Every structure is written in structure tokens, then in C-alpha cells.
């Protein structure tokens, strides 16, 4: 049995740029979630969502959940979930953008973060994918033939 030789170019560390970005997004989620959960009134006034505090608190819980999951050792699903959440946020902000400058700014910011989320989630998915077909090790008994 001939062991496979790994011939890729070595890199110095195991942590990738996508990992680091996922962690930054995780901490961002936690911070945003905390604001949504504990200061929904002020946030609502800033982004044209006055009177929708309960909805913002719900979004806060969602953000905190995504943040915790993004800081785990398998962050890709959480970053994809963030991207989906971004779409929900944009759908919520879009009607308010007709009457609130704050909502317009928020909408642009969320759109930019959506692109970042999608880029990071795609990179994480690629780096953890099992792309090659599984090898057959059925010739590797290791035991003396009977």
C-alpha cells in the first residue's frame, strides 16, 4: 500500500482569510443583535422603522443566533443564514426608504454586507467541500491473510 503524498504548496497557518472574515461577521452579528434586542426604539428611529420594536427585537435574536453559530468551527451555514437574513432586512427597510433618509443609508449598508456575506459563505463552502470522489481502501486490511 502506497500512502498518498500531499503535494500542495504549504502555507504557514491553518486559518484562512475566509475563517477570519467569518469570525468578524460573527462578532458583528452579536453586536448588531445586541443593539436590536436592547435598543430597538433608538435603532428604529434611526432607520425609519419607528413603532416596530417587537420586529427589531426578533431580528436581534436572529442576529445573535447567527453570530454564535458563525463563531463555531463550522461557520458556513451561519454565514449563509446571515445572507438570507440580509434579504429579509432589505425587504423590511425598502418601504421605509421612501420616507426616511436613514432607511436609505441602512439599505445601502445591508446591501454591501450582503455581498460580503455571500462572498465569505461561498469561500467557506468551497474550502470545506469534499469535491473529490471517495477513494476505495478495500485493499487495506492490515491483517495477515488467513
Amino acid at each position, binding site marked *: 500500500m502506497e500512502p*498518498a503524498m500531499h503535494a500542495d504548496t504549504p*502555507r504557514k497557518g491553518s486559518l484562512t482569510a475566509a475563517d477570519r472574515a467569518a469570525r468578524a461577521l460573527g462578532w458583528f452579528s452579536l453586536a448588531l443583535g445586541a443593539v436590536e434586542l436592547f435598543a430597538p426604539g433608538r435603532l428604529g428611529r434611526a432607520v425609519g422603522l419607528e413603532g416596530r420594536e417587537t420586529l427589531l427585537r426578533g431580528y436581534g435574536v436572529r442576529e445573535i443566533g447567527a453570530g454564535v453559530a458563525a463563531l463555531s468551527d463550522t461557520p458556513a451555514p451561519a454565514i449563509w443564514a446571515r445572507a438570507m437574513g440580509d434579504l429579509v432586512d432589505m425587504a423590511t427597510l425598502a418601504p421605509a426608504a421612501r420616507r426616511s433618509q436613514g432607511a436609505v443609508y441602512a439599505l445601502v449598508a445591508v446591501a454591501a454586507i450582503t455581498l460580503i456575506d455571500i462572498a465569505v459563505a461561498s469561500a467557506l463552502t468551497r474550502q470545506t467541500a469534499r469535491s473529490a470522489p471517495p477513494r476505495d481502501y478495500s485493499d487495506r486490511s492490515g491483517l495477515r491473510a488467513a
Partner: protein
Amino acid sequence: VKALVWHGKQDVRYDSVPDPEIEDARDAIIKVTSCAICGSDLHLFHNMVPGMKPGDIMGHEMMGEVVDVGEAARGKLAVGDRIVVPFTIICGDCDQCKRGNFSVCERTNRNKDIGDKVFGHTTAGLFGYTHLTGGYPGGQAEFLRVPFADTTHVKIPDGISDEQALFLGDIFPTGWQAAIACDIEPTDTVVVWGCGPVGQMAIRSAILLGAERVVAIDRYPERLSMAAAAGAVTIDYTAQNVHETLNDLTDGKGPEKCIDAVGMEAHSPFTVEQAYDRVKTAMMMENDRPHVLREMIYTCRPGGILSVAGVYGGLVDKIPFGQLMNKGLTLRTGQTHVNRWTDDLLHRIEEGEIDPSFVITHTASLADGPELYRTFENKQDSCIKVVLKP
């Protein structure tokens, strides 16, 4: 010298570290010729086990050539000897060592006070495995200081290659002890959860110890094919119901002997259970994901034996202890007492009964180590066991 150094979760780097030196008369220094990445290294990689500090050198599966020997170890070791270094550091003198309970040596954990607080009573010092077990630098490095070297070694004769001998330091005796703990009888069905390196060794150990049938459970085709190569019946738990399949194989009675070769990071095919453990571990309300423990207790035949070789870190939740008690199951566990088994296992290798190198799927330089941690973590490239050559 160069070494693989832990810097945080999923962050292992190929760094320069200070040269190891003789610090005690019982020490030796080895030039590491081969080392491996263990499945339990992944628990540290995922920061699942407390007590790692940035700068800690990884690795507890290693062998090499002795290049320096402390004065008190000179009768037992000499420069030029080829040795496998057991992952458990043993003094050879304490009550536990005298009983052969080497993995719970009372003297080698230099952070005994922490070990006593965390475990109730300390366990042995371990290489490269947190400050709870001594904070000893590990063997994924060019050179290694071996404390208590006069007792903490297995001499390897020249006719045995590194690849054949290396796993005497951990995974082979771990799988062997897991099978020994099952008190295997000729009519037994032994089920092994997890077909990673320890699972593969447990499968072959159960066969060598005379089990009538060995069943291997995993989800990765390459691992199942390697298990089948030894003669195991395989179950893909993502495609088959484990409990029903094992009942079908045992006339509805369940297997007599069950081995957990998975441990704290088990995946459950049941979405609710998986989500439950993921959320609780993320919220630090549970240390481990004990799906295999739950399934073994439920599936095992009453009066059977559960043998736990997989590593657990702390608190687990929703363990059906009532089932365990009412079914009269015996639970055996522990880190393997490496040196209790190595004479026998080395003899079996020399006799050609088993060649543990079957499990090696990737061999690379130490510098490739960080990348191979990711490959191994993600089960990419059909990776089962990585050996690194410093």
C-alpha cells in the same frame, strides 16, 4: 526548531520554537522522525478541550531517534536508540504505574493541582494536550523533550519501519484496549461506532481477539471501505437506521459489545438531536455531543458491555442512565495504558499478524501540517490518517 503551534481555534501554525533541552536527569531528547495528527488533536483544533494556550506545541503521536539522554535515564536509553514515545508520560514508580494503570500515573502531571481540581484526582501528564495534563510540548516538531524518558518509551527494533511502529504510541493501543475492555467471546458481535484511525484499530483488534462478527458504523465511504477490508460488516448511518440494522443482524437482541471510537464531536443523523447538542455546546451549556453514547446505551443487548475509547471533555446532557442501569450494562472507559499493551502489540507487528501502516492515507512534511489539519478536519481527499515527516 520548527513545530506546529496552537494559536487558537482552527489556528495551527508552522512556527519556530526554542530548542528543547534536558531539564531533568530522567529526560531525553529525540529527533522526531515521524509524527501523526490524531483525531483527538482535532478536539484541540476546535478548542473543545479547555486548557490550551497560544504557543502550545501540538502532537502526541511521535517517534524518533534519541540524541541526548539525561544522567538518570542512561541505563535504559542510549543515543541512537529508535523509540516510540507513548502519549502518556509515566513515572513507573507510583501506585498506578505499578498496577499498569499508566494513563492515570500520579506523578507526571506537573499541573497536578489543576488536574485534581478538574478531574477530582489528576491523570497522567500528556504530550501536547492542554495544561490540564501538564502543558508538555507536543511531538509535532523537529525535536522533543521526553520527560521520564527512562520509562516513557517503547524501543523499536531496526526491522520495523516508522510507519509500522508509530501507532504503538496511541491509536493502536487505544483501539486494542477498547477491544480488550469488551471481554470478547467467540460468539460476540462487536459494534464499533466511528471508522477513523482509532475505530480502524479497534475493528482489527476485535477481530484478532476472536469476535464472531464486527460491525463498523460511519458515514464516509472511504472509511467504510477500509473497515470492510478487515472483514467488518458496515453501516452507513446516513442511509440505514443503526438500531434497526443492528437488531436485524442479531435476531432482534442487539449486539453484546459496543465500542465508542468517536467521542465528543459526534454527528447525529437525527436533526433535532444534532441541533440540540450544537446549540448547547455553542452556548457553553454542555461540553460534548454525546450521540454515540446515547445510541450505544439504547442499542446494546442487556447485560452487554460499552467500551468508550473516544475522548470526552466534560459535561454531557441527556444520557439515558436509566436504560444503562436497567439493562445491566457495563461501562468501561479511559485513556489507554499504552505501555501495558505495547510488548504484545510490537510482537504481533514483528510476527506479521498486523501491519498498522494500512491506516496511513497522507504523508507529508511538517510544514504541510497546518493545511493537513484542515484536510483531516474536513475529511477531504479521503483523508483518514496523516503522518508528518519533520
